[in-house]
């Protein structure tokens, strides 16, 4: 799961299985198989197997189940529009996790960053309600990115300067953000029309993202950001000075220091980029889908993004592809509810793909070998002359 490390993965501890002369041992392959291929392949095998098993767990017939999945995703225009819309925050969340992951840092606070991004964007939109779109929209996106970065700043500083695990702190910040959002959405910004629900007043219509018409498919232009950013980050990682520093520090902090890199600055900067992407996901979701601040603005996107980043092995193109695959799965989950299926089934499928993907990667890196126990000649009788 980690980005390539030189540690030997031997489990031949001398004290174990001493009774047998032959034993199984997990060894690192001298030449790993194609990691990407095995990981993605395993994810697809997981999806196919779990989809094949799906009818066993619903009351609906296999035919209705599959046809509703098909029409809810790729089979119809509305289905496809749905897939693209869900893909936007998923891909951005995937990036928000995968960019720090290149430095072995975990951003588990994407949901919180989404909340804070949406909150900041909402605040800006209220204050600039009289402005035109080309003023208000960039400012909202910018504010959301700043808010996401601010939200990850404290855990980042604690990690870099005090060694506090960012896994715990970024995760806990999610709940703080949720509380903050609830306060504003039920208090100062409470919409009278919400009728007891947690909704803030809708953002002004000039703050809505415009729609793209591609033939007969209509989707907000956030999709361009979601498709463009992975490519931009992929290129930056391969070709920029920053990308080189992240690659080398991620593989060995000591080597980064040795090369004269500012390791701390790189760690902090990269985490802040992760936070900013989380905030951006929140703003795009608000401005393209929800139009008002509500806890539903995340819809578990952050955790799905984390899974995507892990399965993609922190490869941005992989994040893009898996983001689309997962949005197809989530759209299918919505669709099967109509025919009596449970949307939770999709979360089971996502969990299964994670397990498969992890095994696929392990298989590409490791193999089982059967070896003779060495060096036992003094405690066991010699065989032969």
């Amino acid at each position, binding site marked *: 799961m980690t980005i390539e490390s030189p540690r030997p993965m031997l489990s031949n501890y001398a*004290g174990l299985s001493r009774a047998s002369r032959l034993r199984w041992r997990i060894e690192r392959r001298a030449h790993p198989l194609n990691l990407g291929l095995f990981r993605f392949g395993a994810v697809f095998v997981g999806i196919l197997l779990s989809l094949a098993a799906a009818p066993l767990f619903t009351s609906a017939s296999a035919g209705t189940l599959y046809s509703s999945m098909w029409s809810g995703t790729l089979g119809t225009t509305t289905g496809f529009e749905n897939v693209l819309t869900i893909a936007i925050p998923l891909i951005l969340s995937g990036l928000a996790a995968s960019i720090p992951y290149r430095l072995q840092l975990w951003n588990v606070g994407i949901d919180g960053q989404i909340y804070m991004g949406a909150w900041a964007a909402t605040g800006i939109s209220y204050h600039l309600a009289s402005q035109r779109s080309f003023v208000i929209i960039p400012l909202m996106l910018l504010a959301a990115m700043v808010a996401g970065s601010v939200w990850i700043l404290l855990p980042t500083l604690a990690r870099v300067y005090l060694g506090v695990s960012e896994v715990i702190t970024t995760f806990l910040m999610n709940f703080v953000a949720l509380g903050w959002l609830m306060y504003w959405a039920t208090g100062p910004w409470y919409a009278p029309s919400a009728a007891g629900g947690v909704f803030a007043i809708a953002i002004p219509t000039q703050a809505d993202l415009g729609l793209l018409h591609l033939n007969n498919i209509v989707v907000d232009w956030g999709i361009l950001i979601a498709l463009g950013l992975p490519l931009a980050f992929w290129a930056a990682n391969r070709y920029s*000075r920053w990308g080189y520093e992240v690659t080398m520090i991620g*593989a*060995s902090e000591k080597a980064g220091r040795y*090369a004269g890199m500012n390791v701390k600055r790189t760690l902090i900067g990269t985490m802040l980029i992760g936070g900013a992407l989380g905030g951006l996901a929140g703003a795009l979701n608000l401005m393209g889908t929800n139009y008002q601040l509500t806890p539903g603005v995340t819809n578990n996107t952050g955790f799905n993004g984390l899974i995507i980043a892990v399965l993609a092995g922190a490869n941005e193109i992989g994040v893009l592809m898996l983001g689309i695959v997962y949005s197809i799965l989530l759209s299918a989950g919505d669709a099967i509810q109509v025919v009596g299926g449970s949307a939770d089934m999709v979360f089971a499928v996502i969990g299964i793909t994670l397990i498969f993907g992890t095994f696929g990667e392990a298989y590409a890196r490791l193999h089982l070998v059967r070896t003779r126990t060495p060096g036992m000649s003094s405690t066991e009788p010699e065989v032969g002359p």
Partner: protein
Amino acid sequence: MTIVNNHSDALTLRGIEKRFGELVAVKRLSLSFRRGEVHALLGENGAGKSTLMNVAAGFLTPDEGEIEVGGQRLGFGSPRASLAAGIGMVHQHFRLVEKFTVAENLAVGADDVSSISTPRQLIERARLLAEKFDISVDPASPVWALSEGEKQRVEILRTMSRGARVLILDEPTAVLTPDEATRLCTNLRAMAAEGTTIIFISHKLNEVLSVADRISVMRHGSLLETRERSDSTVATLSKMMFAEHETGTNQLGHRQRDSGEEILIVSHLSADDDRGVPALDDVSFVVRQREIVGVVGVAGNGQKELEQLVTGDRRPQEGSVTIDARPIDGIRSAIKAGLAYIPEDRKGTGLVPSQSIWRNAILRNYLEQPVNRHGIIRGRHARSFASELVARVELSTSDTATLVHQLSGGNAQKLLAGRELEQRRRIVVAVNPTQGLDIKAAEAVRTSLSDACDNGLAILLISADLDEALGLADRILVLYEGRVVGEFTAHDADRDHIGMLMGGARQ
């Protein structure tokens, strides 16, 4: 050496051999330890002391040989069984649970602790144990809040409380402050007087002479001699420890050079180590162009700190380091001033094993033209730079996309040394540059250092291998307890005299 099976022997090792792949760490070694003695195991780093004792304590399974405790033969490879037989080991790196209290750590794995115990009961138990073995610890304190010396006492108490009658300590003073070390030695003498056998692994001569009853000297996996303390002096021991190595790296043939201008100037350098203990005390020297200066000393006498100070990775308390009169105040400034650096940890610090050869080739100059322009790393230039390097050092592969962990140790060091000994550098800091390499690869690295020096570089060689330093260096500096205690030129270098100074003898 013949072993008489004496009933007063607490532990006897017979014909122990331990190999790691090609390397023979311990060669058919036999040694016995008496009841109630402090027995020091002395030798340079890599002599095989720790390996031998890890075998005795069941942490490693030997390839050959047997272990006898009180006339009983002991099975191999089980620390638990060894401890049950009365042999316990305290490692250099403590094996305590930092978040647990002292009392809890003492209870982990103990047989006499019921599975349902209150913290109060555990603390009471710890207090009684501390009293019984006369080792003072604070039972209620969490381990992370303890000093290294206190942690060590917890380790010792834990080992003793499991019934250890032979206590092995692996370089116990390495992590201690001088006061703590003195206190430890007093405690060990008292424990030996009570009948416990103490095996004390060390490479510090003075310490060994002050605490041990008998001293065994190891070198290259073999036992040289076991002596009573009364017939041992710094001179006799250091002569054994640093005696000429038969495979001989000293036939290198020292090259005659005319050194040039002063490049590296280290003046009045004093610095603390990570524990805040003074590690270097008023060290001054210069390294000139076309000159190799070797720094020798027993590990832990300030070499690490000197290395860090010269490469810009540590701030001095006093004094300064300059390269071509430019002060060094950070890693970046050292690189800019023309410092090349071959660190001891080649796969991890000097090279990134999981990355390609070409990414590693530009590690120290990735900010310079033409590899980097306006923040873009230009792969074409980087790869052609790497190709030239690979061709120049005659690497086993010419494909610069090969990952470094696929290279052998020798090839990795060729890549690292080749990268550093080039690029318009002024001075090279090389730390144990041939450690772990086979003879041919080591020879290639030495030749490349010598050639680079002939071509106008200044070289500071920090080496734990006296033979190597004598074979390569134009001048030798001896470091002992953070001070330069001797300086020799290639002509007047007397290895016995150097060995004595390394061991701490007064000049």
